[in-house]
């Protein structure tokens, strides 16, 4: 059995090099791989292409990598709540490809399902469609969008076993299993790492075949972007 368990984030990302194309899981700050992002910031590599639904906030998540100018190109669907990102974009320092959220998810899915492209109606007639092949199905126009080709995928799961089988928690699942499926090398950090056999096979959300390295993370901050509460009844 190949040993997928590594010691920590530094070890897990040791071979990620400048110029790599990296997919990162999470939606906003929910379910982001905090330990690996911190390790990438410490490692100081640059010219990265990052594919992630969002780009973090100024002082957390991918925002930390933007502060260090490690990102050359960002592919995302929504990048609000990040002033440094907006500054780099408007000044032309950062290359940005904004794509529809469902297109992003499905291009990852396609990679993990071994399909070279998808057809989606999202973006037809908009600037997203410029230069793209279109096709009519049942009198409706669709854009052809290619599957992603990622060097590395970095994700966060709630629980995982030593063979890489994963369970996600609540809405922190979001893009994580999709990014995981799309990577040539997939690195997973979990809050709890257990021995193989300790998770009921029926409860596994993503099978370990998509996972190459796994470790138990530490010191999770799990920051909340918009803390909204109701009054006690």
């Amino acid at each position: 059995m190949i040993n997928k368990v590594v010691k920590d984030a530094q070890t897990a990302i040791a071979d990620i090099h400048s110029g790599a194309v990296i997919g990162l899981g999470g939606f906003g700050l929910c379910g982001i791989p905090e330990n690996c992002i911190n390790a990438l910031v410490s490692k100081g590599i640059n010219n990265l292409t990052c594919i992630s639904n969002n780009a973090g906030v100024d002082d957390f998540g991918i925002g930390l990598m933007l502060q260090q100018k490690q990102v050359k190109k960002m592919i995302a669907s929504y990048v609000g709540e990040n002033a440094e990102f907006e500054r780099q974009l408007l000044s032309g320092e950062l290359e940005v490809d904004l794509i529809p959220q469902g297109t992003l998810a499905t291009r990852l899915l396609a990679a993990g399902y071994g399909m070279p492209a998808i057809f989606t109606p999202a973006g037809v007639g908009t600037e997203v469609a410029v230069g793209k092949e279109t096709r009519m199905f049942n009198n409706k126009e669709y854009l052809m969008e290619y599957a992603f080709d990622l060097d590395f995928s970095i994700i966060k799961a709630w629980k995982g076993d030593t063979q890489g089988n994963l369970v996600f928690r609540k809405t922190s699942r979001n893009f994580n299993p999709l990014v995981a499926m799309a990577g040539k090398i997939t690195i997973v950090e979990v809050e709890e790492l257990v021995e193989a056999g300790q998770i009921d096979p029926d409860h596994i959300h993503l099978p370990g075949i998509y996972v190459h390295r796994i470790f138990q993370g530490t010191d999770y901050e799990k920051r909340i972007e918009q803390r909204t509460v109701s009054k006690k009844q």
Partner: protein
Amino acid sequence: MALDKNQIAKRIAQELQDGFYVNLGIGIPTLVANYIPEGINVVLQSENGLLGIGPFPIEGDEDADLINAGKQTITTVAGSSFFDSAMSFGMIRSGKVNLTILGAMEVADNGDIANWKIPGKMVKGMGGAMDLVASAKNIIVAMQHVNKAGESKLLAKCSLPITGLKCVKKVVTELGVFDITPDGFRLLEYAPGVTIDYIKEKTLGRLVIAEDVKEMVV
């Protein structure tokens, strides 16, 4: 008297039907959840991977792993389910979500919508809006009738980058309720105290008045 945001949301809530799966956008659409009529059960979809959005948590019960698409802390309800983002947009694309309610910067009289970008000024991105408008069968826009400069947001043609073509079915503003028809915006209801002439003055796209036009009940 023109409506306030909550009254716009309350009027839109009258469009909900029992058993609907509904996606609510950020802003006024989110408020619709507060006015679901009695006896109507709907399931709210959050495109980050949840069916069955519950109210905000009681203080102290916030969970960083449980948020809506606006990144707000929320709760679940009996019957909720979680899924990944591909399945989330799969159910949107395949038409399983019955109704989408979203905000807009501009709507054209043919149903085109612009709500994701102001060139050179705002570059937040489209999020799930392009996927939603390209696939939803029923799209209601909730927005202010005019922008901060007092210019109509109901136009003959959108001036801002398009989010989707010919997709909006209905628009509810502080001044009235409009269907999108081949003849343009069709005024169905006007807000209490607002004259039809005033609505005509504030609407730049083609506007026809329904024969049975009436005052809105909110």
